[in-house]
């Protein structure tokens, strides 16, 4: 058969020299089962770790007896909190400047919290030994309801924190103008009020979290094999936590089986693996099982939102929202330092409002910590969910079609750059155009007719709309850092004497296809085939510093760095070409792949000839060093603001409440598209995760604080049968400040689709019940949807 492997360059066939559809270079190893994931790492003498976890959500630890476990013939060591104290590793900092117990010493604060770490000769024996550890607990009342956590008499969860007298995780945070918002509401002619719970979910990458830690006792070198989304930042954190010299820590990410925000934080198991390797003097592998992943690592959402939206003269004018954020037992929310509620205050969405105000109160509960951005830019999913649910509610309150109300209230194209009521500067957009494209693909007016026809036949059909705007690509160093680290990204480009190139980046793919798309950026800028460009990533010893991949920041930030470093190389190539062609640099013009003399296209120097010259014995231009390479650190001047119009069509079984997503139309504007195939793939995946969150996914707790969804039997994800054939469309509005005009797309579909599906389900129930059903919280699973249909929607706690 024709095989792309026969390509002499070892690349893929039909590769454009630059942007355009191109099959992925990284596929070669994956389709052969030759990826190199964390659990594939095997080192000589490697031991295996396992974590003992608490059966209680809140309990004092009276005693821990590890003697029987230590007596197990295959156990090398057992580590508990007091052992970690001697290493200074008992507590670790979270991304949000809180502290989290690595192993619980005083008390456990959430169900399945880490209590002891066993290191054994093999993984089965490590599990056996867990059962031999005796822990005596004194059970305390658990708080799993964040409203109850704020009661004056509520048991104190964080008694480890000096001066902490209540369960508030941080001071209430606010954005916008309260007085102006009050004024706008005073003048409004329509106001809607809703209480909305964006329920707790989990990103669930198919590969769970884990690590192989290899501390060499002779050299003091610590090698860490760990699939995480921000390897450089992790290295700095380990240096700080463990007091190890940063230059002797090397993180190797290899291949990562999905991240979706779950692999941003540092987890107790990681610190245990490192401590275990120090204690045991051998490499230690720790790989969590699925229950550990679901029940203890970074959850997402859990925002309870009380909101009002108002209109005057048929247009939306004001928004207010007060949030209680349930952070669990430790505040390890992913967010830039100055943004304690992440980017939630982009909550005014795509609308030109007169005023808005929001507050966020963060609370500790006896639930697992997290608050990660599940395919989301720091709480933007919650923000978009809130505003798009509220707009839908307001439209029906006003008896106006929800698209019509959006069209009347959108930021207009001539208003960009647009200052939002809560302080964001949107870069570019033409929202009306994108909304119309979605309406055309959907056949919107016919859908409304079909809905009525179905109703007459006793069938429930719902139509959902969203128009989202995101701010992604964190971010400008003047505004954003995480743990004091600027949110910039580096790139290092070396063009070899033969004209082939290696570009090293700080972004960390978890499946996004960087080995292909980042090569395409260099190809676009330098005219070298992407097949002749290697993208190096995932090794902190061999790549420049940067903050990694999450919040759709790879293309906006790291992609910017790659474009900038390519242009630096191109500029250097121009000086060399001038010398080669015996002319002045300013007399040269660029066409993809070569500098040529203005007015004489035939006289020029191709990039590979320039590269050969740069490394040869020929004289360089005055003051210029030999070689053809460059470094760059990209500091984005602003976030980018991708947006999109989504329309969902659902059918709801009147007898069971089962929701079937029949159609999903997604029109995304993510600016310039590097590789449309990869963009479409990102959108497909994000929509599916949105379907999961809207219809299936839920992490819930019983009154004792037990996590009720700690396996895939109880935490439901969409299969191929729950997903429709997605109908995609696009508009392209380039980002004016990004080097290649791109805005980022990975999370957009996962941000835009949950409210779209919720709106669709509620729309179906609204029509079915003649307007009586006005709201239900996601997930719209059969039980909850059926209850809502009967007028008994579950309250938001």
């Amino acid at each position, binding site marked *: 058969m024709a095989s792309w492997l026969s390509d002499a360059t070892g690349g893929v066939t039909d590769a454009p020299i630059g942007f355009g559809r191109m099959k992925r270079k990284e596929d070669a190893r994956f389709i052969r*089962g030759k990826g190199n994931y964390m659990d594939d790492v095997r080192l000589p003498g490697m031991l295996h770790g396992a974590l003992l976890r608490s059966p209680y959500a809140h309990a004092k630890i009276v005693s821990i007896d590890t003697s029987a476990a230590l007596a197990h013939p295959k156990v090398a060591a057992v580590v508990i909190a007091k052992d970690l104290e001697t290493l200074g590793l008992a507590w670790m900092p979270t991304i949000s400047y809180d502290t989290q117990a690595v192993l619980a010493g005083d008390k456990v604060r959430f169900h399945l919290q880490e209590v002891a770490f066993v290191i054994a000769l093999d993984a089965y024996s490590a599990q056996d030994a867990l059962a031999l550890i005796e822990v005596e607990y004194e059970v305390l009342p658990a708080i799993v309801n964040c409203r109850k956590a704020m009661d004056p008499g509520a048991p104190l969860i964080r008694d480890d924190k000096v001066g902490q007298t209540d369960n508030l995780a941080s001071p209430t945070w606010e954005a916008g103008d309260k007085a102006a918002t009050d004024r706008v509401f005073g003048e409004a002619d329509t106001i809607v009020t809703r209480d909305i719970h964006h329920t707790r979910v989990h990103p669930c990458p198919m590969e769970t979290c884990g690590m192989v830690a290899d501390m060499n006792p002779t050299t003091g070198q610590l090698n860490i094999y760990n699939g995480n989304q921000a390897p450089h930042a992790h290295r700095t954190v380990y240096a700080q936590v463990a007091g190890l010299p940063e230059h002797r820590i090397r993180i190797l990410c290899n291949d990562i089986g999905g991240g979706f925000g779950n692999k941003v934080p540092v987890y107790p198991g990681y610190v245990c693996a490192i401590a275990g390797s120090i204690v045991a003097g051998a490499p230690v592998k720790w790989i969590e099982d699925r229950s550990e992943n679901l029940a203890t690592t970074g959850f997402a959402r859990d925002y309870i939102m009380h909101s009002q939206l108002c209109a005057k003269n048929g247009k939306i004018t004001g928004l207010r929202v007060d949030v209680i954020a349930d952070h669990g037992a430790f505040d390890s929310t992913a967010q830039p330092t100055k943004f304690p509620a992440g980017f939630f205050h982009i909550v005014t969405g795509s609308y030109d409002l007169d005023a808005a105000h929001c507050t966020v109160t963060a609370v500790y509960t006896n639930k697992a910590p997290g608050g990660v951005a599940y395919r989301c830019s720091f709480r933007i999913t919650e923000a978009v969910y809130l505003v798009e649910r509220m707009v839908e509610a307001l439209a029906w309150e006003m008896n106006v079609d929800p698209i019509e109300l959006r069209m009347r209230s959108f930021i207009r194209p001539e208003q960009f750059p647009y200052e939002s009521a809560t302080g964001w500067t949107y870069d570019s957009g033409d929202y009306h155009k994108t909304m119309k494209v979605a309406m055309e693909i959907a056949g919107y007016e016919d859908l409304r007719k079909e809905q009525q026809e179905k109703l007459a036949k006793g069938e429930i059909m719902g139509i959902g709309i969203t128009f989202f705007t995101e701010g992604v690509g964190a971010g400008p160093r003047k505004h954003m850092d995480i743990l004091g680290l600027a949110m910039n990204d580096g790139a290092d480009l070396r063009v070899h004497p033969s004209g082939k190139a290696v570009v090293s980046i700080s972004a960390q793919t978890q499946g996004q296809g960087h080995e292909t798309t980042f090569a395409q950026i260099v190809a676009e800028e330098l005219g070298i085939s992407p097949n002749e460009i290697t993208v190096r990533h995932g090794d902190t010893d061999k790549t420049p510093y940067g903050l990694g991949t999450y919040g759709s920041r790879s293309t906006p930030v790291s992609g910017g760095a790659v474009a900038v470093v390519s242009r630096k190389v191109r500029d250097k190539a121009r000086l060399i070409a001038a010398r080669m062609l015996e002319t002045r640099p300013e007399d040269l013009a660029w066409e993809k792949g070569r500098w040529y003399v203005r007015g004489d296209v035939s006289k020029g120097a191709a990039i590979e000839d320039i590269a050969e010259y740069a490394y040869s014995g020929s004289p360089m231009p005055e003051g210029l060093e030999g070689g053809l390479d460059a470094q760059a650190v990209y500091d984005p001047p602003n976030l980018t603001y991708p947006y999109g119009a989504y329309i969902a069509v659902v059918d709801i079984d009147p007898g069971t409440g089962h929701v079937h997503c029949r159609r999903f139309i997604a029109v995304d504007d993510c600016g310039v598209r590097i590789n449309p195939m990869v963009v479409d793939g990102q959108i497909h995946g994000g929509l599916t995760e949105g379907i999961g969150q809207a219809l299936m996914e839920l992490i819930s707790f019983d009154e004792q604080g037990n996590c009720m969804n700690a396996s895939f039997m109880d935490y439901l994800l969409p299969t191929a049968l729950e*997903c429709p054939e997605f109908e995609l469309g696009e508009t392209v509005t380039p980002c004016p400040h990004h080097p290649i005009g791109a805005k980022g797309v990975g999370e957009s579909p996962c941000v835009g689709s949950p409210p779209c599906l919720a709106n669709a389900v509620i729309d179906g129930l609204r029509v079915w019940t003649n307007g009586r059903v006005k709201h239900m919280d996601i997930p719209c699973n059969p039980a909850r949807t059926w209850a809502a249909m009967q007028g008994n929607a579950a309250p938001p706690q």
Partner: protein
Amino acid sequence: MQVSMSINGQAHSHDIEPRMLLVHYIREMAELHGTHWGCDTSNCGICVVLMDGVPIKSCTTLAAQAEGHEISTVEGLEKNGVLDPIQQGFHEMHALQCGFCTPGMMVTGRWLIDKHPDPTNMTDYEIREAISGGLCRCTGYVNIVKAIRWAAAYEAAAATGGN
């Protein structure tokens, strides 16, 4: 206990603990790392391999249950340096992103094409139903369906000399 089986046509025999799962046998004893695992409850399909040509979840099969049987994994798809059409189809149609579920999805697709009486006329539902024992968080399944179709069409064309 001693367990013997064939994996991708090669004989394997090891002294193992009776409780050892097949997925661990394949990964640790046969040292074939292409078969991954994703859950412990038979829900995600990441660990799917073929036993005597039929897809099974190797995370909930004891290695001992494979005694004397023929196991096929992702590593067995490529023959003599030529990719199986299912592998080529996944590449052509962008049916993988992180690659973690890909081995299970590909061997399931291979099984479907082999057992279907008329592979070029499979319905969407038939393909989706066949892969619904597996979870993928990256692709939304759209391109996996297309990849399986691509492979079926390629094989049909090859069989009639169309290539």
